[in-house]
């Protein structure tokens, strides 16, 4: 290469040690890539990064870059030190929506790499924390070309800014025996219903869907998403007593007592003298611990569905919030069931779009207005599963008590009738 290679003494330290080094990867692009453009970009990128390491500061600023027809999906990055590092002066990221569960064939990964090499820096992150494939480092011109190319073979941009964001799902029913729902269908049904809200930011702030197949919640949906859908079952868990015996023979009674029976958060299990596990299922909170320890012997029940929790988010602005149970259980089998889930999401987003303040997540809005106002806004009845315990302060007006109690009894009667009919 004719141009001067930036010295990177600090970054070189990150080439040492056994873990794969991202610095070595960028250097490979700088030193070995056949395209001079990519070599130049990698060189200046390393130069700027070394400068950051030396001065302990970042030098990227935002701006406005988009692809035609969308207002979102590209994270613009312009260098503040572009004169010293001109070839990586424009270094935008394209956020691309992966399939639920992050599945790829090697053929598809190659095709994406080929397209990216043509237009971008040659660096891809699998995946960003929201869940996108992050194509890091395109010039403003190249952004449109790269998008056009991959858009033709099935890839679309994700969200950025105050909009519905790219979703995230666990591996789920594709490979996991704990899964209680079809994450693939839920994910695509919801995300693709809100495609317009992904591409055109017009909400108070970000809105994330995450789907976990069971309460182990491997995609961290309760804490990391505004709308968490978690697979669960409501009948009895399934117990293979032969497998229980086999497990005890292998690991010993003591192990089962110490690691399964006494770890149950609601003490709903006992181990009998003849080595059977008995569960009082109405006490079980589906925490998954015993299933995790004994995956061959204990399984979710057959009456599967999902719980929905709304309002999780991280620190800014009012502090961390976990999502709150809004729907303790709903079936997801028929087209109508899925439609109900979509309607719930529509109602929640619409109500928040109307009532949320600028830069206020839905969980923060609920915190500000109270859960009851939110429930009334989206037409969901109160349920004791939504709270850890009822109110403990007497500062409340209860003059509508009789009507509310009446509603509860009517609802219970209705549920009973439906159960009898079903």
């Amino acid at each position, binding site marked *: 290469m004719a141009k001067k290679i930036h010295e990177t003494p600090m*970054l070189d330290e*990150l080439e*040492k040690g056994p*873990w*794969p080094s*991202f610095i070595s*990867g960028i250097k490979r*692009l700088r030193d070995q*890539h056949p395209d001079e453009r990519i070599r130049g970009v990698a060189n200046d990128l390393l130069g700027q990064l070394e400068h950051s*390491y030396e001065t*302990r500061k970042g030098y990227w*600023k935002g701006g406005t870059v988009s*692809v*035609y*027809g969308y207002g979102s999906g590209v994270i613009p990055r312009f260098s503040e030190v572009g004169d010293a590092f001109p070839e990586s002066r424009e*270094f935008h*990221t394209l956020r691309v*929506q992966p*399939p639920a569960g*992050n*599945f*790829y*064939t*090697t*053929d*598809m*990964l190659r095709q994406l790499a080929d397209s990216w090499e043509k237009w971008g820096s*040659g*660096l891809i*992150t*699998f995946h960003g*924390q929201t*869940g996108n494939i992050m194509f890091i480092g395109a010039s403003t011109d190249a952004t449109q070309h790269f998008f056009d190319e991959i*858009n033709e073979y099935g890839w*679309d941009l994700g969200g950025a800014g105050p909009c519905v964001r790219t979703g*995230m799902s666990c591996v789920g029913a594709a*490979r996991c025996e704990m*899964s209680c729902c079809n994450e*693939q269908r839920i*994910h695509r049904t919801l995300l*693709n219903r809100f*495609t317009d809200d992904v*591409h055109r930011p017009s909400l108070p702030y970000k809105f994330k869907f995450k789907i976990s197949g069971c*309460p*182990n919640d*491997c995609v*961290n949906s309760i*804490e990391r998403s505004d709308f968490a859908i978690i697979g669960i079952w409501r009948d009895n868990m399934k117990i293979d007593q032969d497998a229980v015996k086999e497990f005890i023979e292998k690991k010993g009674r003591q192990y089962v007592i110490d*690691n399964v029976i006494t770890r149950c958060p609601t003490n709903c299990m006992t181990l009998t003298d003849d080595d059977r596990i008995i569960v009082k299922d109405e006490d079980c909170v589906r*925490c998954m*611990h015993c299933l*995790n320890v004994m995956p061959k012997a204990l*399984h979710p029940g057959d009456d599967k569905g999902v719980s929905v929790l709304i309002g999780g988010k*991280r*620190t800014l602005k*009012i*502090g961390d919030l976990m999502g709150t149970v809004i729907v303790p259980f709903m079936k997801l089998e028929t087209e109508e069931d899925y439609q109900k889930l979509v309607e719930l999401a529509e109602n929640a987003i619409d109500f928040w779009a109307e009532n949320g*303040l*600028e*830069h206020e997540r839905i969980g923060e809005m609920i915190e500000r207005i109270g859960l009851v106002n939110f429930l009334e806004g989206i037409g969901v009845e109160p349920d004791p599963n939504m709270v850890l315990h009822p109110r403990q302060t007497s500062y409340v007006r209860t003059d509508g008590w009789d009507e509310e109690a009446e509603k509860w009894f009517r609802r219970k009667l209705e549920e009973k009738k439906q159960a009898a009919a079903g």
Partner: protein
Amino acid sequence: MTQAQATPRMPIESGCPDGFQYMHPVMRRNFGQWKYHEHPRPGVLRHVAYSGEEIWTVKAGTQRILDVFTIRKLCEIGDKYADGYVRFTIRSNIEFMVADKNKVEPLINALEEAGFVVGGTANSVTMISHTQGWLHCDIPGTDASGVVKAMMDELIDEFRNCRMPNRVHITTSCCQINCGGQGDIAINVQHTKPPRINHDQVANVCERPAVVARCPVAAIRPALVDGKPSLEVDEKKCICCGACYPPCPPMQINDPEHTKLAIWVGGNHSNARGRPTFHKLVAAGIPNNPPRWPEATAIVKRILRAYQQDARDWERINDWIERIGWPRFFELTGLPFTKYHIDNWRGARNSLNASTHIRF
């Protein structure tokens, strides 16, 4: 005007693609029909379906930010030693799925030979989930990618083995927005000084009412500085969170000296045993010290060692601390307990001990 400019291409708003087309055929056939799994060795899972079919998974750690050479290397391994189907976990590990047990050993060998690290399953320390940092973010206080590389170099044996009481999820974040999320151990930027304001730029760059509204403690107010409309910060109120910096870059929060790292423990997303928990502050004032951040790694290793020695099987870090209590946690780790550990944010009262449940 060229024709391309006259008729711009409209996007195909296909949204999220169909995942089934990229799934291993065994997984497609047995979707929702899996019976159980086994964990024959670190980095390997065997899932068995009710049909009797099985799928083997080999998990490997990567550098997360992949260059096209690395991607092609992974694809080459995937074609030669596996069945051409992969997926990525949310912690940026790659998983190769194969139907034939006999492919597992050669696949592991090929990955290790190419410099990838097989492991990260069950009760190991898996890959650190992290944010972008100086490489690409517009507001970073540190370079999470570098912190993670340096730390994984030292934790690699715990990635390769399953010697922890339960799984350990570590996260890092480059600012207090904390995109890295909750973790059993979280290494996050913690600023310690209010923003330095470039009053020449504020009025041009920032939408001032929006910036005022962003402040969690109402410490920012509009002001006229040297005759220019700007913003000022009540430094006594300021909690140095940096929330004003993204909407107003002239309010520079990052500082080479005063931007520090803090370590938090006990964040757990799972509902297993207890309800999900947020992580709690245990150490702060840690120097933001590139290129290898040795001080942060030393504290993480100290916490891991105490957890490994003292926790029972299946206890995550939060479960362990709940059993032994916070006084013992600080004793075992040798970390100081200070006034900064006592919360004063909203809801703080719920974190105070209103009982005589005291361990001696």
